[in-house]
């Protein structure tokens, strides 16, 4: 990853990023425009109102409840005053009450939420029980009582609405604070010696702030609705009429019976306008500030396979054969990320292939593409996947479902996240079976679950335990049992040992190896660790930056590696026979798939790269029987 110095003011940089993503959010933009319009109207109110609603001079009895006309665009009310002018000036009151009441709510809610979430224990208990009580109390009748008992002034209304509107904010902020508090950077701040106030200010608040902003917008709209309700009930400040009060007057003074609809519709429209604008803006903000809402991770994409140059038949006998597979991530405004390019390999019955590469090299994308489980942006742009002679890339979604899990199944990375925490492990394994064999009788199903657990070395009495009662190693075994549920022929194991201790890792490797021998399974073992692969694999495919760096049988890879990347990677392993040897590393970092170098993808880090490597991407050369490497130097030797 190359970085160029860009001295920039970080807060303006943050703002510009924020603005550019808001600009791509139509809902938020419409909301913002609507809001800006009404706020401008409120600010300029005395200047743009055609009449002064407080003055009664020149009004005669013939002016009462006049329908809209040229002189009075929205007609007149019961006192003969211009409705448009009252509406324009009323917007000020509604917005002032909305904003100030929301401010009070957000401050109270924010403080309660952060303090409860951060300090926990008794403090949290007390604060959250108070919040619960506030939520249970019917707030509108209580507001009515409080305002009726005190003087209905603007200040009282703001205050009362403010102190009743903070509960949602407090709850939302508390849960966000809890999440932030448990993150490692807070622990790091404590280790530095930072006190609670420092951590709240510098670590909790910045991460809670986006949420507060969204809450603030939504609270303003709730406050405006509350104000209208109170005013409509006659509890508004009579000296400063708001939209709610206009409704109250119209209602109380016979607008309905005289059919003067304009007196009701106009302020009603104002309320709807503001609430709608705030809701749209709030939702837009939420999507901008929390971009995760927009990513659908495992949405199956359309299989847009364009087989241009590949027209090969399947090799005889191979169980699974991948031919020239290329996958690109295609985003609307960015150039395609060439995540996987021209990968081919074959897998026979009972064989174990290691797919090795660093994070971001495209190995997981490649695996997900075999069963077409890629996110929507990921598309197979070239190549074929033959399974028992069938081309999987040509199958329909329905046909593919007969292959998924029954023929090819996956052991996912991160066993804790892949298991449902509220269901027993046995239940989840049973589900994997019944999805494909729905008619299996209950006792037979339970028998099968026990058999599967036994196969992976879990005692039957653990069947009815929940995932959290399992240790990391057992969860991984349970995942393997689930993958075996429908007797598949191929298992894809995606980093199955990565987060595990060495001893548990050794156990899982031993298990996979024994399953392969016992059941004749073919296994694709995806990993970043060349060392793990050496223990059990038959052949190895080393990926770098989306392409095959080297592909050969396991002995060749470790003893006669030809690609500089493989060679360097092997040197990066500590050699237990020479423990004091200084470790060698590969300088630099793997390329980003959206910013690949022009020539060989490894060239920027390669110790022996020359001119040609930086211009031309090397193709895959056969360097021996079943041994391939993509390097210009290999070609030169041939």
């Amino acid at each position: 990853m190359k970085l160029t110095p860009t001295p920039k003011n970080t807060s303006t940089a943050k703002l510009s990023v924020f603005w550019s993503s808001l600009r791509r959010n139509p809902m938020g933009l419409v909301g913002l425009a609507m809001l800006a319009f009404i706020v401008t109207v409120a600010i300029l109110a005395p200047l743009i109102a055609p009449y002064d609603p407080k003055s009664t001079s020149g009004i005669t009895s013939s002016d009462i409840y006049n329908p809209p006309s040229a002189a009075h665009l929205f007609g007149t009310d019961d006192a003969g005053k211009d409705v448009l002018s009252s509406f324009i000036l009323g917007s000020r009151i509604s917005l002032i009450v909305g904003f100030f009441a929301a401010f009070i709510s957000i401050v109270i809610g924010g403080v309660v939420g952060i303090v409860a979430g951060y300090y926990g224990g008794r403090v949290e208990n007390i604060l959250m029980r108070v919040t619960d009580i506030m939520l249970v109390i019917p707030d509108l009748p209580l507001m009515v009582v409080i305002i009726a008992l005190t003087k209905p002034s603007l200040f009282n209304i703001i205050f009362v609405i403010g102190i009743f509107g903070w509960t949602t904010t407090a709850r939302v902020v508390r849960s966000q604070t809890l999440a932030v508090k448990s993150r490692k950077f807070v622990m790091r701040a404590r280790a530095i010696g930072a006190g609670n106030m420092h951590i709240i200010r510098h670590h909790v608040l910045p991460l809670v702030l986006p949420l507060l902003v969204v809450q603030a917008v939504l609270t303003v709209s709730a406050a405006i609705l509350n104000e209208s309700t109170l005013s409509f009930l006659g509890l508004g400040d009579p000296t400063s009429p708001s939209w709610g009060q206009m409704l109250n007057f119209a209602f109380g003074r016979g607008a309905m019976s005289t059919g003067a609809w304009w007196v009701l519709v106009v302020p009603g429209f104002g309320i709807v306008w503001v609430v709608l604008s705030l809701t749209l803006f709030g939702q837009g903000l939420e999507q901008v500030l929390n971009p995760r809402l927009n990513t659908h991770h495992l949405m199956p994409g359309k299989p847009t396979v364009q087989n241009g140059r590949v027209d090969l038949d399947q090799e005889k006998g191979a169980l699974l054969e991948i031919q020239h597979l290329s996958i690109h991530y295609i985003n609307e405004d960015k150039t395609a990320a060439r995540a996987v390019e021209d990968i081919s390999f074959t897998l026979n019955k009972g064989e174990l292939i290691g797919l090795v590469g660093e994070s971001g090299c495209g190995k997981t994308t490649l695996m997900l593409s075999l069963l077409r489980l890629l996110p929507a942006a990921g598309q197979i742009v070239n190549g074929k996947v033959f399974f028992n002679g069938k081309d999987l890339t040509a199958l329909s979604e329905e046909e593919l479902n007969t292959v998924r899990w029954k023929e090819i199944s996956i052991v996912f990375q991160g066993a804790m996240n892949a298991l449902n925490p509220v269901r027993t492990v046995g239940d989840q394994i049973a589900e994997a079976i019944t999805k494909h064999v729905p008619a299996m009788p209950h006792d037979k199903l339970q028998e099968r679950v026990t058999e599967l657990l036994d196969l992976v070395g879990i005692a039957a009495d653990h069947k009815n335990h929940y995932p959290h009662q399992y240790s990391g190693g057992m969860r991984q075994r349970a995942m393997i049992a689930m993958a075996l549920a429908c007797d598949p022929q191929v298992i894809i194991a995606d980093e199955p040992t990565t987060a595990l201790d060495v001893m548990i890792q050794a156990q899982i490797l031993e298990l996979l190896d024994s399953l392969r021998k016992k059941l004749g399974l073919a296994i694709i073992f995806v990993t970043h660790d060349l060392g793990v692969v050496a223990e059990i694999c038959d052949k190895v495919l080393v990926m770098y930056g989306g392409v095959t760096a080297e592909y050969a049988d396991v002995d060749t890879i470790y003893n006669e590696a030809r690609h500089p990347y493989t060679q360097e990677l092997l040197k990066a392993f500590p050699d237990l026979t020479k423990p004091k040897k200084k470790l060698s590393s590969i300088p630099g970092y793997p390329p980003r798939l959206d910013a690949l170098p022009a020539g060989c993808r490894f060239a920027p880090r390669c110790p022996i790269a020359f001119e040609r490597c930086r211009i031309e991407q090397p193709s895959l050369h056969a360097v021996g029987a079943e041994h391939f490497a993509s390097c210009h130097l290999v070609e030169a030797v041939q």
Partner: protein
Amino acid sequence: MSQEYFLEVRGLKKYFEADRASLFSREPRFVHAVDDVSFNLNRGEVIALVGESGCGKSTLSLLLMGLEDPTAGSIMFDGRDITHLNDHERKSLRRKIQMVFQDPYESLNPTQTIEEIINEPLLVHGIAKDKKERSGRVIKAMEDAGLKPAEVYLNRFPHELSGGQRQRVVIAAALVLEPEILLADEPVSMLDVSIRAEIINLLAELRITRQIAVIFITHDLGSVGFFADRVAVMYLGRIVEIGAVLEILESPQHPYTKALLSVIPVPNPRLRHERIILQGETPNPIDLPTGCRFHPRCPLAMDACTSNDPPFITLSKTHQAACLLLK
């Protein structure tokens, strides 16, 4: 003790209250997270604490950092017990002992720039009031951590950096306080293999250039060879074997150490060797096994192991192990 050590841990214990055996039982049960651990550390020395998850190494690191209070035992640092300090003393101690965390993706606040992150410890401790001096220290720490030239990184956010670069940021934020001990909790296990060595080499360099002592916590015995001076192998809250790195790697004496060594993946199929794969997992530290706590999983366990808790046997000036088979 005749010799004054820089850091001296004696009989350190940390028990967490677990549940009660039943609702009516009076005695609460305890998780024996760290159970009588003793070791010492010289200035500029690197000691590796090795063990599986659940062996207590993470709790031990929290105790050393003063983020948890021990149940018993002492930690002497520069001749002073640091287990019972008030907030003020603890804060000033933090400057001397700093930590590098396992996960560089999680341990950086995503809303802070790299400069803010590395500057933060200085602000917290009120060191170097003058802005120019602060930025000088930030840049020096960054360059010592291999983030060169520093200007390139100052205004970046963590998500713009790779895992290896992020871990360097974490190291720089620890270095900026000029600590005397660096506690590195699995600092490379989340990184790609090709850049792990870089981080290890960086830490090795720092101990020479800055005379920093390093406590290197890992589950991977394979990664300690080049870097550590001594290795302590932990099992179920206790050190079962401790010795100079070559003594541990070349002539391990405890059956657990031998097993751990045998399962390190060797990146060469021609060197595939017999692995001693221990079955099951570390027992839960609430109901400790009687006698030797390793006996239920030990391939060499004898009858005596079920009743006798083995004492430390001194094998050389530096090498000790706790096993009844050793005489």
